[in-house]
């Protein structure tokens, strides 16, 4: 990215020695890679809205975790997986119906979030709960969360490798996949669970509301750039990682141009992703990608 000019680097002394930055780089980086890879499948399967719904619903888990004194990752993850399971049980195959179900469940989920955030704020000392759950607070993530978060990310990556071929085939032609003996429904569920992990990781870092940006943005931009799934996944990962680390870096640097206040990391990350999407041009590569896989 063009933001990494040497002049800016010089002003950010201490960047690589800051423990809050270390944790943010590690957890943010893993959330970015997992979200980017899962995101490519999400865009191919036309499940962007389901991804967004899972992310929003996971905020109920994040806010409940604060109430019960659990690690936020556990809350986000549990709620996202619960919602993913629910979506699978409903099992609507038509996209329009699927969006309706997602929307209704999303509303109910956010209602729970409203309740838990109210309880957080009025009954516990966690007065920054709303900001933390909805928009993320990367530099305040507890360092102890780092190792579990990395393991969860590794699990998601392994799932991606195992599901790679079947998911692509189902994305192109579910009927053909069924004929070839694939359990479409089981694979769909495994995919939703992997999506839950991606969503939980990014909700914990850039917030439940913004995590869609990390899931859909890099994937959408990458698919415009490359018409083959392999390269698209790599490009999406590079965009997501650059946006996340670049955002952390800019947030760190903003300390020096906002009279020691600093701007939120989430803002920078989402903005970079948006710019990458704008830069990715107007090619309708999504259709070409689908053609390329079947060829």
């Amino acid at each position, binding site marked *: 990215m063009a933001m990494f000019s040497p002049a800016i680097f010089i002003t950010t002394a201490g960047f690589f020695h*800051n423990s809050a930055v270390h944790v943010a780089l590690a957890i943010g980086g893993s959330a970015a890679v997992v979200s980017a890879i899962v995101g490519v499948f999400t865009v191919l399967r036309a499940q962007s809205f389901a991804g967004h719904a899972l992310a929003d619903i996971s905020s109920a888990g994040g806010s409940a975790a604060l109430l019960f004194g659990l690690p936020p990752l556990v809350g986000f993850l549990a709620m996202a997986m619960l919602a993913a399971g629910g979506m699978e049980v409903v099992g609507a195959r038509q996209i329009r119906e699927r969006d309706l179900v997602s929307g209704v469940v999303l509303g109910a989920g956010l209602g729970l979030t409203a309740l838990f955030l109210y309880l957080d*704020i009025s009954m*516990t000392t966690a007065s920054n709960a709303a900001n933390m759950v909805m928009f993320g*607070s990367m*530099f305040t993530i507890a360092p102890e969360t780092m190792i579990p978060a990395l393991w969860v990310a590794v699990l998601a990556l392994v799932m991606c490798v195992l599901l790679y071929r079947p998911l692509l085939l189902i994305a192109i032609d579910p009927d053909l996949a069924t004929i070839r003996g694939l359990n479409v429904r089981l694979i769909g569920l495994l995919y939703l669970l992997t999506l839950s992990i991606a969503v939980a990781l990014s909700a914990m870092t850039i917030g439940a509301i913004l995590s869609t940006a990390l899931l859909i943005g890099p994937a959408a931009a990458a698919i415009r750039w490359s018409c083959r799934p392999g390269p698209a996944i790599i490009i999406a990962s590079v965009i997501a990682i650059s946006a996340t680390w670049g955002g952390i870096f800019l947030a*760190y640097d903003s*300390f020096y141009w906002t009279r020691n206040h600093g701007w*939120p990391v989430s803002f920078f990350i989402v903005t970079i992703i948006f710019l990458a999407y704008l830069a990715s041009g107007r090619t309708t590569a999504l259709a070409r990608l689908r053609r390329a896989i079947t060829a």
Partner: protein
Amino acid sequence: MILWRKQAGVAALVLMLFFATARCGMASGLIDAVGIENQYANIIHQIGGNFVSVTAIITNPNTDPHTFEVSPKIVSKITSASLIVENGLGYDAWANKIIEAAPSRRRRIVNVQHLLGFPNSAPNPHFWYDPKAIPVVAKAIAHDLATLDPAHAAYFDERWHRFDDSLQAWTAAITSFKTRYPDTPVAVTEPVADYMLQALGTIIETPFTLQLAIMNGTDPSPQDIAAENALLREHKVKAFVYNRQVMTPLTESFLNTAKKNGVPVVAVYETMPTPGYDFQSWMLAEIHALTKAVAMGTSTESLLPASAPPPTGRLF
């Protein structure tokens, strides 16, 4: 901030006021008084004695008063009071809106911010920790009580003098700390006790931008986080003074870092801890706790007995 949500709530409650009857007065011959924060209510009680019925609105020592949620019952309590003491400076802005929505000519209001002449741009609203502020507040309360109930003016005046004299123990403790432990460096989480820490002559090493971020629940900068951690790890401070009513994962990690590195910790409260304290004994207890930390390295994580809820203030 979650201001928008609170404003919506207040707007709804203000609407309800149109249907409520505003009952200002002295139903039972007592002055109906409200202290929005329980420390102010306590001072009203000490001065008003038998002729005042006082209600404290913000009383829970296990939550953050900045994020207080209003209920309809509280609205009617406030609008029917004839003396209201509010802090001001946005700390209890909701109370101000309720008061403005139900005007009453008889009602007396003590707005501590305006009383002390602080501009709206002042950064620290925790005036009750300021030893210079409380005598002024007490005097205003005594004056308003006498205006509302002139027949007992002498009674209020006598009790106000007694309260004012009792504050000497507080100022004496401050002077004694200041002379025995001059320029003591301390770290804090947010500005709750800053006025008193300044009066005690301590040097607050924590960046003020970090204190503001924690108080307002916004994203703190990693530079400030690193600075605070360095203060604790490198023993650059004699005590870690934290607001136990605002505990986030970040402040908890500071607390753990302090303990791990043998920096004594001192819990301070935003509202008067109950039961067992009045305003003066609370302030003395805070100074006593800081003295123990600086002199002997002893930590104080709670001013209440062990049966009280745990320090994190969690619900379960």
